[in-house]
């Protein structure tokens, strides 16, 4: 039935657009698949990574990067076959892979790197290469980067989607239209068509033979045509998967998992998440100027209860600020923040907040009443209600106010908040700088934290590391200091749920990467 319906639909569209006959429609199942991208990535406006501030998963398929990351955030060679950093971190030598060609036939070589990095000047993403002073071409496939200061995070930046390598020639030729009408990379798929907010159609790059070591298949990809649809409403996307309208759905909400389990032809992959949900505490307003009240507030949050009751055990408890796959998350256990209501009550007693007859603590005649801001999504509201009940248990009355995501950011800047339930999505320890640096008070530094010791540790972690190992150690120290000041309560780490039609798609059991990206999609195939 679905097959017939799909065939009729595709036939109707074809006939409408190109006037083709009905008889041309069959054979559509040959290595063609339709995916729906994560709802959080809907509306990404272009496929020009140099200037983009939002990209979706198709970008990983159009472009290759110099370096790839695996699911443990470790770095692997790709367009860069190898790299070496000087012991003082002031220079890097990258050896580039040979025989790589862009979709337009242009060769990938050292000149490409020089031209590509020059494109970043004056863009929103310039900060990613700010530490580079000069680029030297050693030979046709070797470049040397001379640094203004050491930046071991260059490895992370080079593995970022924003550093997918476009053809500098195509960028120059197309100007402002680049990334909108055409995008030319070296990736396993070519951009066939792109309707922002609707769908991207990708066709296989038949010349591709340079997959990274994270793929079993080095190329070309097995699936010939990939349609990446954008569906903002998650219920609609789920129903499309259930009815066979699509073959794979990124970012499946936990609520839908029981229904997916009950559907025989659907399978779900759970990958480690890149998101942390937490409750920032505004340290600049009463009663949270008192570190004991901050500590009590953080200790009142019962991570396990939220994981079990709201997320039905899917995901993980969060006990510090970073996703658990980062080495910097592995802090001394004494700094991890865990539920301890007895200690929370003792701390509030010590701070002079005595329990009132109505179950709300008081001090100098004032009740321990605070505001708890959250976003409109159902998930945030549920977690906020759970946190509200947990705070009530230690005698703190929290009043929930719901805002949309743009409004709430603006209100943070006005410093009218006390507590908030929010989340971030990032796989690098420099998120600590983003949310706790004294340079960014209000938003993103919602905790309004600004003290000399933190700034010193921040500076050392951000710019004072010569090697990746040194950077990890510096960030770990900074992370531990942040934790010791009780600036937030960690709540939850979700997993990435990806559901697919197992009767149609063959998906590797092991996902090799921080998400379902090019390295795994290369190994996927449509079963005839």
């Amino acid at each position, binding site marked *: *039935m*679905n097959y017939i*319906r799909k065939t*009729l*639909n*595709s036939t*109707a*569209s074809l006939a*409408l657009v190109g006037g083709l006959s009905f008889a041309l429609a069959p054979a559509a199942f040959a290595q063609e698949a339709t995916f729906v991208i994560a709802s959080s990535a*809907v*509306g990404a*406006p*272009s496929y020009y990574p140099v200037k983009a*501030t*939002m990209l979706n998963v198709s970008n990983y398929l159009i472009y290759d990067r110099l370096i790839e990351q695996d699911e443990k955030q470790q770095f692997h060679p790709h367009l860069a076959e190898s790299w070496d950093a000087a012991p003082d971190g002031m220079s890097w030598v990258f050896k580039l892979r040979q025989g790589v060609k862009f979709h337009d036939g242009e060769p990938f070589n050292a000149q490409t790197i020089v031209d590509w990095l020059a494109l970043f000047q004056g863009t*929103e*993403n*310039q*900060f*990613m290469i700010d530490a580079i002073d000069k680029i030297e071409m050693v030979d046709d496939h070797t470049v040397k980067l001379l640094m203004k200061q050491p930046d071991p995070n260059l490895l992370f930046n080079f593995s970022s989607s*924003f550093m997918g390598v476009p053809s500098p020639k195509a960028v120059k030729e197309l100007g402002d239209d680049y990334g*909108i009408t055409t995008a030319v990379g070296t990736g396993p798929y070519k951009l066939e068509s792109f*309707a*922002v*907010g*609707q769908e991207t159609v990708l066709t296989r790059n038949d010349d591709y033979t340079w997959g990274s070591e994270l793929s079993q298949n080095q190329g070309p990809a097995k699936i010939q045509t990939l349609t990446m*649809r*954008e*569906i*903002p*409403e998650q*219920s*609609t*996307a789920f*129903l*499309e998967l*259930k*009815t066979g*309208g699509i073959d794979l759905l990124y970012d499946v909400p936990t609520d839908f998992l029981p229904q997916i389990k009950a559907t025989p032809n659907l399978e779900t992959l759970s990958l480690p998440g890149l998101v942390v949900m937490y409750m920032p505490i505004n340290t600049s307003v009463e009663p949270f100027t008192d570190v004991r009240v901050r500590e009590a507030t953080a200790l009142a949050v019962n991570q396990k209860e939220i994981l079990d009751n709201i997320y039905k055990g899917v995901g993980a408890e969060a006990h510090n600020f970073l996703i658990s796959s980062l080495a910097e998350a592995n802090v001394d256990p004494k700094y991890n923040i865990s539920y301890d209501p007895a200690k929370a009550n003792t701390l509030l007693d010590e701070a002079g907040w005595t329990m009132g007859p109505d179950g709300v603590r008081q001090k100098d005649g004032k009740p321990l009443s605070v505001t708890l801001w959250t976003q409109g999504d159902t998930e945030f509201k549920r977690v906020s209600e759970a946190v509200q009940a947990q705070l009530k248990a230690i005698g703190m009355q929290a009043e929930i106010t719901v805002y*949309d*995501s*743009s*409004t709430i*950011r*603006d*209100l943070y800047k006005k410093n009218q908040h006390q507590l908030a339930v929010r989340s971030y999505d*990032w796989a690098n320890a*420099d*998120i600590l700088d*983003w949310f706790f640096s004294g*340079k*960014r008070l209000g*938003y993103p530094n919602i905790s309004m934290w600004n003290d000399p010791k933190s700034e010193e540790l921040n500076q050392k972690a951000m710019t004072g590391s010569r090697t990746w190992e040194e950077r990890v150690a510096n960030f770990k120290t900074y992370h531990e200091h942040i934790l010791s000041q009780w600036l937030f309560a960690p709540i939850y780490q979700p997993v990435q749920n990806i559901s697919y039609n197992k009767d149609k798609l063959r998906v590797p059991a092991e996902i090799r990467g921080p998400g379902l990206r090019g390295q795994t999609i290369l190994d996927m195939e449509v079963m005839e």
Partner: protein
Amino acid sequence: MLGFAAKRLLLLLPVFFAVSLIIFLIVHLVPGDPIDNLIRIGATPQQRAELAAKYGLDKPLFEQYFLWLANLFKGDLGDAIVVRRPVATLIAQNLPYSLTLGSLALLFSTFVGVSAGATAAVHRDSLVDRGIMGLVLLGSTIPGFWIGLLLILAFAVQLGWFPVSGARGWSSLVLPVLTIGLGGTALIARVTRVAMIDISQKDFILLLHAKGLPNWRIQIFHILRHALIPVITVLALRIGWILGGAVTVEFVFARPGLGTLLIKALNQRDYPLVQGCLLMLAIAVMLGTLIGDLLQAAMDPRSRDALKS
């Protein structure tokens, strides 16, 4: 008639200015700004300030308004800040989808609404009348997105007759058209019913009955014909409503269109794009009102005199 039309058109000018100012103020006074959606983790506060300056958001509000208005009169709606395309291009790409959906929904609600209203009027105060009006009322009170989801569950998930979402061919239009159309049926049905009952009590209808004309002929060619004057006025007024009403429905059905564009732009506080979309909706409402006035004036000279005065 031409003079009347010109006068009505001129009257729209102050309305347009007022609407443009209201739209601009609403968009800019709501908390949040597009720059937060442009900067990435790692960007410096200085880069944020540079971006605000680049898009003119550091200028006083009145200056920003007059710049926008001046460009508007040059036919330039500006560039979307987050989506980074000309607003006019984005609207031109999306408007045909909304117009198709809106027109079909208007046709559907007109056909069903007039039929239901006429049937109810003919069977006034009977069980049929109450049943029809009850059903129509129910359809109009359920929110569009909810009807949409129910229709998806019934006709796409259970029966598999139509696709769940998207804009691929005519089959993907059926459920969204039904969703919007059902919501608009009630008003048309009620207006038709009331107008027909009103006309049926006129002396000339009694005369036609006395002359022995068949009832069906009187109902269709005399009562319904006269009753359609207020219906047509209501339909014209609904042109703008139909475009605006499609906003949530486009979102639920993941269809391209002005609504989908507007929701995304609102979430990202993409000022020029929100202003452009809202202006389009406002123009649609103004044109609808104008068409309604003109049609009414053409059909009923008494109303033209009333409007003139």
